[in-house]
């Protein structure tokens, strides 16, 4: 475990460095960077992605993937909006939205576990299906009149601080997920499954049931993100959060989680979330279009895997050279 820890630490160490670099550059470039308001802007923007990245981390570590999360966000947002618009009380609207997320996640999970279908293809299909259903439900309309109490939840801050309510929710979720992944029985099972599905099965772990639960959880959290998103923008539209799923996966991979499963930590993912948030923030402070950061994110993602690969190859080449030199010395 020590060796594993030391490896993880070195990737996280790099992330900490990157984060510090980003914050440093930001504070140099703009006097507003370290202001409380900026902190608020920085965090509130990334919260939905951040929240969805938590179950995504677990799913990827367990050896699967869920690309339907953003579509689910849109669907639940739309359901929420529709119910509210048609006169139902807010708590009911929120409840049903969460339920929709749960059921949709269950569908994902059943297709993957009962029919043994690859999660990549299944969730690409449900990505389209759920987004499509969102359009069917609301068409090209939007619901934009929401009670202030609700919208305050989205963009309001905890009184006396600059921390948005969504940030608090995220913080609580982080604590829970860290407990689960790094300290609980379930977390150990996830790492086992992601590393060696057969050995996990041979150890009495019910791989199918655990994965089903993960997908249900992912759906539920996506629905929660949908609620927060709707509150923040005070708008329920079918095209809410289009494309977010790739951002979520990027953040998880950037955090050091291996796409093939079995490796990674939430610490890395949280760091990666903030690195991306800082990047977004710095770019907007510099009035650079938020989309140019796509280039930076894309490069970061590729380098996060390419870098270690190249480093390893160099190590192997050096080792071989040393061996060759060593043997020639013996002669």
């Amino acid at each position, binding site marked *: 475990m020590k060796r594993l820890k030391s490896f993880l630490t070195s990737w996280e160490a790099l992330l900490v460095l990157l984060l510090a670099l980003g914050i440093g550059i930001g504070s140099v470039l703009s006097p507003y960077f370290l202001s409380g308001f900026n902190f608020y802007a920085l965090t509130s923007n990334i919260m939905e992605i951040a929240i969805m990245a938590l179950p995504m981390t677990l799913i990827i570590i367990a050896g699967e993937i869920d690309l339907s999360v953003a579509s689910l966000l849109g669907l639940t947002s739309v359901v929420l909006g529709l119910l509210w618009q048609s006169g139902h009380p807010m708590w009911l609207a929120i409840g049903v939205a969460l339920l929709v997320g749960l059921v949709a996640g269950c569908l994902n999970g059943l297709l993957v576990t009962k029919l043994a279908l690859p999660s990549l*293809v299944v969730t690409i299909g449900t990505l*389209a299906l759920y987004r499509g259903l969102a359009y*069917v439900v609301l068409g090209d309309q939007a619901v934009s009149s929401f009670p202030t109490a609700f919208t305050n939840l989205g963009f309001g801050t905890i009184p006396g601080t600059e921390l948005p309510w969504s940030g608090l929710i995220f913080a609580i979720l982080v604590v829970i997920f860290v407990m689960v992944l790094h300290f609980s029985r379930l977390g150990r099972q996830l790492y086992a499954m992601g590393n060696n599905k057969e050995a996990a099965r041979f150890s009495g772990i019910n791989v199918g049931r655990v994965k089903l639960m993960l997908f249900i959880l992912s759906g539920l959290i996506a629905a929660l993100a949908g609620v927060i998103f709707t509150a923040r923008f005070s708008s329920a539209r079918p095209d809410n959060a289009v494309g977010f799923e790739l951002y979520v996966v990027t953040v998880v991979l950037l955090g050091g989680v291996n796409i093939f499963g079995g490796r990674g930590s939430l610490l890395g993912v949280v760091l990666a979330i903030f690195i991306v948030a800082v990047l977004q923030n710095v770019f907007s402070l510099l009035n650079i279009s938020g989309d*140019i950061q*796509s*280039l930076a994110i*894309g490069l970061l993602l*590729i380098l996060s895997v390419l870098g270690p690969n190249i480093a390893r190859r160099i190590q192997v080449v050096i080792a071989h050279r040393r061996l060759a030199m060593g043997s020639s010395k013996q002669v």
Partner: protein
Amino acid sequence: MTTTSQEVERAKQRSQVNQARLLGLVSRVRELGLLIVLLLIVLTVSVQAPRFLSIDNFEQILLSVAILAIVAVGETLVVLTRNVDLSVGSIVGFTAFVTAYFFKQLPGSNLLLGILLGCALGLVLGMVNGLIVSFGRVPAIVATLGTLYAYRGLVFIVSSNTTSQINASDVPSSYLALATTQIFGIPALILIAAVIAVIVGYFLHASQAGRQLYSVGSNPEAANMIGIRRDWLVFAAFAASGLLCGLAGVLWGARFATVDSTNATGLELAVIAAVVVGGVNIFGGSGTILGVMLGAIVLGTLQNALNILNVSQFWLQALYGAAILGAVVLDALITRWVQRTILSRRKKA
């Protein structure tokens, strides 16, 4: 006893031929099935709206999926090798923008030059993908996810430094004509897509390299063992995909009145849908261009049908999703059934 061993021999031969027929049929079931689905859609819709069943309309359908089909051909090459290219939308958008901009800035230049520029750009972007996956050993999902973002970012940078939008009035009519010309009464776009499909389909069937692509996806280790140059083949597949995306981008710019930095965002979804519905195994090793073309046509027909039946276009994406899920579930069930049948037959024999 000779008689019994002869009988056993004959029975074996019969079962052998039957098995071959069964499995051969199953692999062709996909194309047949797609044709049947197509016919069903056509029949049910034309009953309610007779104008669906017109050559004009059919031409419309083909036109609407021509560009998608070109990209899908490239994606097929990549998926056959057990990889995936998620960056196709970004490459198409990039090349569309650059080509349109080229024609806007240099309106007198040779049409062919502009086309080659777009294709070359696509080729380069595809080769970068290939390098990262093949030689950088980065998993294709991660690599092309990264380039999806990176290339899209590049388009934004280019567009913010040049012009944010290129309109039809900005480019020479000869360029726009690419999308509207007809040859022998058939729109050039459809012909181009058809020619590409035929060429690549033929390549996959008739060339050594094409067959080796299948082997790489079917069993990468076995391919390695017999000395097949897996890395180069995968690199070439990504390069080809980029090239075809480049061509698609050139045509995109000609076809759509306005070109900006958001072109073709999300195209990868439709492309993967066409590929999966078309019967290409997401794990590589099997699938045909014919199937993918049929898949694209089925999806295009669905869209057209929605239009004609005045069903809101909002059902389209949901249908895409249902089509992908349906195709994959059906494949899994058929595979299970086939395996069970083979096993039970073997037990009896």
